[in-house]
């Protein structure tokens, strides 16, 4: 059983307020090592330099959107295995299908509670201790 406290998670979102709220939810779940990035490029820097257990990325970002980031991660030789959860808005049904095709492990609809987030994470890496 993976321990929440040992997880290294990267949050990607161009809105600082949303990043912080997601951080709060993660901390509620017990995650301690949280990286943040505000666009796809800095996210890729982190993903290729840091060992990560999970990437949680918003879709709606300028320059490189969440799908673009997902594809970049999946195409990268060392980062490609990192589990990826895409954050979508209410109306983004078709997006979820595309995300699945691009290799996303899961999706979560914004706004989400810490419980929902935990559920989504456990669906990917197993029950958290």
């Amino acid at each position, binding site marked *: *059983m993976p321990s929440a406290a040992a997880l290294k998670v990267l949050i990607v979102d*161009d*809105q*600082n*307020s*949303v990043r*912080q*709220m997601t951080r*709060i939810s993660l901390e509620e779940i017990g995650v301690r090592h949280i990286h943040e990035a*505000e*666009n796809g490029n800095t996210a*890729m*820097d982190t993903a*290729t*330099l840091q*060992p990560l257990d999970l990437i949680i990325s*918003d879709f*709606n*970002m*300028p*320059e*490189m959107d969440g799908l*673009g980031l997902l*594809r*970049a991660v*999946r*195409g*990268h*030789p*060392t*980062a*490609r*295995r990192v*589990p990826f959860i895409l954050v979508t*808005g*209410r*109306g983004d*049904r078709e997006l*979820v*299908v595309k995300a*699945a*095709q*691009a*290799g*996303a*492990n*899961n*999706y979560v*609809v*914004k*706004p*989400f509670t810490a419980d*929902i987030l935990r*559920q*989504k994470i456990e*669906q*990917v*890496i*197993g029950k958290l201790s």
Partner: protein
Amino acid sequence: MASLDQLKQTFFEECSEALQQLESGLTEIREGGGSDDTINAVFRSVHSVKGGAGIFGFEDLVGFAHVFETVLDAMRSGKMAASHDTVDLLLSANDVLTDLIAMSRAGEPIPADHGAECRAGLERLLGPDGGDADGGEPAPADFEGLDFVPVRVDAGADDTTPRVYQIVFRPKPDMLKNGNEPLPILRELRKLGELALAADTCALPPLGELEPGRAYLGWTGELTTTATRTQVEEVFAFAANDCDLEMAQMSGPEQALPVLAPALDAEAQAAPSVVASPSIVPPEPEPKPKPSNAEPAAPRAAPPLKAAATTMRVEVEKIDRVVNLVGELVIAQAMLGQVVHGLPEETSGRLAQVIDEVSHHTRELKDSVMSMRAQPIGAVFQRMPRLVRELAAKTGKKVRLEMHGENTEVDRSIIERLGDPLTHIIRNSIDHGIETPQARLAAGKNEEGTVRLSADHRGGRIVVEVVDDGAGIDSERVLKKARERGLTSPDKVLNEDEINNLIFAPGFSTAETISDISGRGVGMDVVRRNIQDVGGRITLKSERGRGMTLQLALPLTLAVMDGMVIKVRNETYVLPMSVIVECLRPSGADIKNLMGSSGVLQLRGTLVPLVHLCELLDVGRVAATEERVVIIADAGDGSLFGVIVDELCGHQQVVVKSMEESYGAVAGVAGATILGNGRVALILDVEKLSELAVSSVGTRLDKLDAVPVN
């Protein structure tokens, strides 16, 4: 960690930026410009507002934003055309969104029908089947009916079954030099389970040939662990470049890789269209063609108003404090210069050089600090489009607002004071200047009137202009009104310019059209006073039937200025360099004396009226036969006059300190400063002086046709 309230504040600040993007993007689209990127950026802005609003619980905001966003989505996917009417509706939607955000921010209850009309309009655009109606419901945790199966990593593996891996770990010789070490890695490995390792010493040289910085050892062994292969590999992640690693699973459940559509796998391997990682990537064992740095859809970024990623929020008080300190530094350094000036040659030589350098750096420091306080004037301009739209709608006139020079940087202190005067001037233009569409057509003009707002750096000042192509000032009506209000005597003859300037007189107001638009009693005199209070100037030009131009000239900053230090009798004063045109020491022959005035100066064919500063400031009597220095200054309306002083002491940067709080406003005095010698010098307001000169010397001066020297 930030509190919820702080995060909400952050969200509202993000909303402000989003609204700005919306306004400029929609306006661009309306004007016929705007690329795919523009509509995408506009969509994203609303989407961001909606997302954040959902997270922070502003449901009313979410509902409206959702409809707004759906229309924009239809537009960006080509399902809906960007007609003028549609974009106008979107602009109104932006206004409603602005209001909703403001109310949410202030914690005010939102009236149920606020923006209802606009919302209905948007919903009509979407039609009966377009767009989803789920805007008002809470977000589903999952989309209904979607066949999405979350992809487990380590799918199928029972976490508690031990596996055995055989590991061969061979650090490369340079590993230590690259900052990696085998021992911590082995310790980490041991944490994962049972480790049985044997060291491989075959590469170890005799002691005499041993280089301490090189790695010679390797290890082989077995690790029994419940960890997955990924987790074991991760232990070696940082040293991936510096070692050879072989890992084979000997027993236990296999780990499945995340399921990828086979097409994607092939695509990821070969396609150069995937964004490549930066060069830190360790080389692949089988070198695949390295994807080039081409990005799939190279962003043709529409230039934003200001680059968002490279700015930082700093509290205003912090910057003001720095500005103050730099001001003190400038003063102290001037004093230092004075002291050095008084030293004997041998010491002062080298010292003077150093002082020179210091003053150069101080000047640059001052410039940098002042530029920190500078903001693009667009911050004030951005309120105007909405104002114009609302006024045009209220008055039934068609008006177009053109803005130029939004990026012109202006000191923060001035930006704050500019909003109200500008608002009032534009209100005036639309209310009184621009005619109704019918009247305009009848006059042979375009049905739509234009108000052009521009800002520019000119001659050491910021010049803001409001130009309209309306009817101009009705000078007969103005004169009549002014006479009625006793602002000018009935038999005084005034030329057209003078009549037009009467609208600045206190007590003047265009009575018959006081509507709630133009405001109650806020006349142009208040506007002018506001501008003058910041050391600026306002001038007006009107052409009957063609339109009106109002020009505001403002100093670049209130804090530091270039000044000319002068002496009159025993008193030292400072004149702003920006008003000085020329300094001369004229011969007696050039000065003509006229009865009842201080004389005039013959300057290259024109006559410039003179004023004795000592007389004006009451610091001494005029001595008739002495040689004087004359400073030719701009009186503010383009005409020149000459100021007679005793001595020119030099040109320097002065830190402007306001005296108003302690002493109130004194006509002719713009502030004070501390000179290098530690003494206080008053900074004179030249424009005011010229007015005082005229009034003290009598009307003779205005009979002299002083023509500006161009």
